[in-house]
């Protein structure tokens, strides 16, 4: 609890927490003191000198920089102060161009406020010498303008760019020529700017302004892109989404956003949206009414047996909808053939962490990263994939946390790292075990934790002892000293946290990778405590929720096994349930090829682009007799459909999303859906009703959520009302349970309460050989999202980083005799695609990269799977490059 202090401001007694500034105290008490270069949440800068106040002894101090002292007496308004402020304000106005009425910031401009507060008039201004202003405008960024003539050099933009660790802009030049500029004064689009728009949000004048229209109302909801789950306010004008801003109260992002969250949400307004149900007749889609479509589907589906039907749920849809789809599959179709895209991202995490710790989710929370004394970021290009989490990692580093980055590519995060280990692709297990070996050798083990809370340590110790350093070095390509250095830093930190993503899981040995990481955390006791943990960063906004809701072939909602919990669910759902375990996602397609799966219901997915080895998927979709695709846009997959159903986007329905840190958050309907589009839950209910199966009589998502609460203990204590402000992290078992910030405080959720060391194997899948000498890594780009169903509708995003190219090290380019912009044929054992070459020095020699937004990339990847989780080895494949 902070001490409260009392100060006397202009004769008024006001109270404020210790450590706050005079300006904080005034603003918290709704007292205005002129200021320009200060914004709550950022550091005081003291540059504009407008917040000068007088202390009792007549000193002039800046209110923003001066901390309060108990009993302090301060004057904020006097002739002396106003005289000084008038001069400062006049000089600023003299160096500021613009016609206020035509300025987008008009009405919110702080310079305008100050000018009118101080009563600046012509007399103040005409006595000043005319000043030659650089009034150039940088129009290069598709989402915002930089109008140099309006800049008052307050530095807020520089500070906001610094906080997120990008530092694309800074004060450049000196004296009267000072300006906010990029490297070599290039247009923003050619700089390292990531277009997050944080600077635009902080600019007090019209120097950095959004190009978008102004909204007429706002609706609080959650961003639909990645798994971070940032709170946003959607700006709406009429029935269109025109803007978005971060919700400063939301604990996940504290108001910060990335380029997609801030500028790429108006895909909702796209004219390409599906508006009417479509039924395929003679290879052409015909618009029909809902009644007809529902009747058609009900009639068709009733002809199939359970094992002939499969459904693919969606990590983009709400918890309620995923719950309903799995319920539909199990109770109406009597099948357990339901899965979703987590199979292609964190299935290994789910399998490995459930087995070793008890639960497959992030053990700790995003905000705890800020306080971790060491962060190990392995197999995650966080700045591209989870930008807002990256902001927090960088913030932690600035506050003294140590950062270890393990990645074959010299990613942006490396710039902030204390130790960078550049291992060969796919060699994480030996590297992590090497770290474990070093920790055991140096005896940095948490013995008490080992004794009280774990099992299987002895055999793990022996296993690690037997590993040879020579072997580890030769496989990973990293010296033992470097591995030891990283291990010691990790093990000797009081609270160390691991974050990882697809670089760990999307391998033939993905589950082994996660086992290895889990062992590393256990060895050092970095679990079950604040600011530690092992944290898989989830890719999609609701992929955690889709798993929680039981859109899995072997688990009911709440990860209850279909063997153990069947009776409970049969009773609750009042029907018999199938006993046999369902098919995992890739197997659904395999079986479809063989004609075993005849009907498929795809909700909000585009598997023809997202699956590994898509040649196979195409064949599967062609051989399926009856395919339902339910989506917001026509997709590459919907071409194969027999019925296409128009669904509502995140902005047109209510419901809940569960983010990567297990936080269940409310989303709210903000605009009217286009045409006849309906929420996914409504559609599923109607089909079930038409098929005459009870249990789907829901009026709204709240009623569905109430049923979920009864069945999923971890959601038991939640309600829409409780979720209103910032959401709740599961497990939350009762009405008065505040939710769980970090897991395993009192014990692991395995049978005996102990975590288990599991021995990972060393298996490697493909290694380069003479025929396929290059390694191809696939990954995500900041400016696109997955199969681009949403982001392709945002024109501005096209102007960034070419996501269609094949990236390679310039040295490899030289060897091959290709230049940037040339085309090469990329050939793997599965197929080949043509791609344009782009050089990227961050890549290792012999390693190439393609983003998975580029559709044909999955012609190259392999569907060979991790035997433990079913995860295809999407991340790494071997290719040959043939210059064209």
């Amino acid at each position, binding site marked *: 609890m902070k001490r409260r202090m009392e100060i006397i401001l202009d004769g008024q007694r006001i109270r404020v927490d210790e450590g706050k500034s005079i300006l904080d105290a005034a603003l918290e008490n709704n007292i205005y003191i002129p200021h320009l270069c200060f914004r709550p949440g950022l550091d005081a800068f003291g540059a504009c000198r407008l917040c000068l106040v007088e202390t009792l002894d007549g000193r002039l101090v800046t209110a923003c920089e001066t901390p309060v002292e108990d009993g302090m007496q301060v004057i904020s308004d006097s002739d002396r102060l106003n005289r000084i402020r008038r001069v400062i304000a006049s000089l600023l106005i003299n160096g500021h161009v613009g016609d206020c009425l035509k300025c987008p910031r008009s009405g919110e401009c702080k310079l305008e406020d100050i000018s009118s507060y101080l009563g600046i008039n012509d007399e103040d201004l005409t006595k000043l010498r005319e000043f030659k202003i650089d009034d150039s405008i940088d129009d290069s960024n598709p989402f915002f303008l930089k109008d140099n003539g309006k800049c008052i050099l307050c530095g807020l933009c520089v500070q906001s760019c610094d906080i997120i660790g990008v*530092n694309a802009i800074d004060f*450049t030049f*000196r004296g009267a020529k000072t300006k906010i500029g990029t490297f070599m004064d290039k247009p923003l689009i050619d*700089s*390292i700017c990531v277009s997050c728009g944080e600077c635009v949000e902080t600019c007090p004048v019209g120097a950095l302004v959004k190009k978008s229209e102004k909204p007429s109302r706002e609706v609080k909801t959650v961003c639909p892109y990645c798994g971070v789950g940032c709170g946003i306010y959607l700006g709406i004008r009429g029935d269109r989404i025109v803007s978005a801003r971060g919700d400063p109260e939301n604990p996940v992002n504290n108001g910060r956003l990335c380029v997609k969250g801030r500028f790429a949400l108006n895909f909702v307004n796209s004219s390409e949206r599906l508006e009417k149900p479509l039924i395929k007749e003679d290879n052409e889609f015909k618009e029909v009414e809902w009644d007809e479509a529902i009747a058609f589907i009900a009639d068709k589906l009733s002809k199939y047996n359970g094992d002939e039907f499969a459904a693919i749920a969606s990590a983009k849809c709400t918890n309620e909808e995923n719950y309903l789809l799995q319920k539909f599959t199990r109770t109406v179709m009597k099948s357990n053939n339901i899965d979703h895209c987590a199979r292609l991202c964190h299935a290994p995490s789910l399998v490995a962490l459930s087995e070793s710790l008890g639960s497959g989710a992030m053990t700790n929370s995003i905000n705890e990263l800020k306080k971790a004394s060491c962060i190990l970021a392995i197999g995650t290009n966080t700045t591209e994939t989870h930008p807002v989490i990256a902001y927090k990692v960088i913030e932690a580093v600035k506050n003294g946390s140590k950062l270890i980055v393990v990645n074959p590519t*010299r990613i942006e995060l490396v710039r902030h790292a204390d130790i960078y280990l550049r291992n060969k692709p796919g060699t994480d297990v030996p590297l992590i075990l090497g770290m474990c070996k070093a920790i055991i050798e140096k005896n940095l083990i948490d013995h008490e934790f080992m004794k009280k809370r774990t099992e299987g340590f002895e055999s793990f110790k022996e296993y690690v002892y037997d590993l040879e350093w020579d072997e580890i070095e030769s496989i990973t390509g990293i010296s033992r000293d470097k591995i030891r250095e990283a291990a010691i830093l990790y093990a000797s930190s009081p609270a160390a946290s691991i974050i990882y993503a697809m670089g760990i899981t999307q391998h033939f040995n993905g589950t082994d990778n996660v086992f290895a990481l889990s062992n590393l955390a256990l060895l050092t006791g970095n679990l079950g405590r604040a600011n530690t943990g092992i944290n898989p960063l989830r890719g999609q906004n609701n992929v955690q929720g889709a798993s929680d809701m039981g859109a899995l072939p072997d688990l009911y909602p709440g990860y209850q096994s279909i063997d153990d919990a069947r009776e409970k669910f049969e009773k609750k759902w009042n029907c018999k349930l199938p006993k046999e375990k369902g098919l995992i996602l890739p197997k659904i397609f395999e079986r479809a090829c063989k004609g075993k799966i005849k009907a498929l219901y795809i909700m909000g997915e585009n598997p023809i682009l997202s699956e590994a080895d898509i040649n196979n998927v195409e064949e599967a979709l062609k051989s399926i007799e009856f395919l339902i695709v339910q989506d917001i846009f026509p997709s590459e997959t919907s071409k194969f459909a027999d019925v296409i159903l128009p669904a509502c986007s995140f902005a047109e329905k209510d419901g809940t999303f569960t983010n990567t840190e297990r936080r269940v958050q409310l989303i709210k309907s903000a605009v009217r859906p286009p045409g006849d589009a309906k929420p996914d839950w409504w559609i599923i209910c109607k089909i079930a009703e038409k098929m005459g199966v009870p249990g789907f009589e829901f009026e709204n998502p709240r009623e569905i959520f109430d049923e979920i609460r009864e069945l999923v203990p971890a959601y038991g204590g939640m309600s829409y009302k409780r979720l209103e402000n910032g959401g709740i992290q599961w497990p939350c078992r009762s009405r008065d349970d505040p939710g769980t910030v970090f897991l395993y405080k009192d014990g692991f959720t395995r049978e005996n309460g102990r975590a288990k060391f599991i021995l990972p194997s060393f298996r490697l899948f493909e290694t380069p050989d003479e025929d396929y000498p290059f390694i191809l890594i696939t990954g995500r780009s900041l400016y696109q999202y997955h199969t681009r169903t949403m982001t392709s509708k945002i024109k501005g995003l096209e102007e960034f980083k070419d996501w269609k190219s094949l990236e390679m090290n310039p040295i490899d380019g030289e060897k091959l005799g290709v230049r940037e912009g040339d085309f090469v044929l990329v050939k793997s054992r599965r197929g080949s695609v043509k791609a344009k070459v782009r050089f990227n020095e961050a890549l290792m020699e012999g390693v190439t990269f393609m983003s998975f937004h580029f559709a044909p990339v999955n012609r190259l990847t392999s569907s060979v799977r991790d035997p433990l989780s079913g995860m295809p080895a999407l991340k790494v494949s071997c290719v040959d490059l043939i210059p064209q």
Partner: protein
Amino acid sequence: MQRLRKILESYQGKREDIIPVLQDIQKEYGYLPENALKELSKYTGVSEGQIYGIATFYAQFRFKPKGGKHVIVCTGTACHVKGSDQIIDTIQRHLKIKEGDTTPDHEYSLEAVGCIGCCSLAPCIMINEKVISKIKPRQIKRLLPQKS
């Protein structure tokens, strides 16, 4: 590249090394090449934007190679009073470059500086260390002849 590596590796790559490294780079290349600054950013972990902010703060650093003839125009008090602004304007028009730039054929570069210490001869310019005094705009064409 080799020369740059050598310079970088003689420092630890800390933030406080940036100014001395910039000086060494300029000594080696005569200016700060863009790619060298990018490498420096990678080596120190300080972003290229910040490095540019630091480098532009100091008058000693330049970002374009000097021309064969480096023309310095004095803008000290005496020269200013005697019309150095006009001299700069004339040279800019004549060479079709801005102050601080180099002609595309690398023949000339133009820089305006503070007092060069020969106020009694104002206004003056320097061409490759040689002072030309009491200069008048109409002399410029003859002093700075252009090919073709």
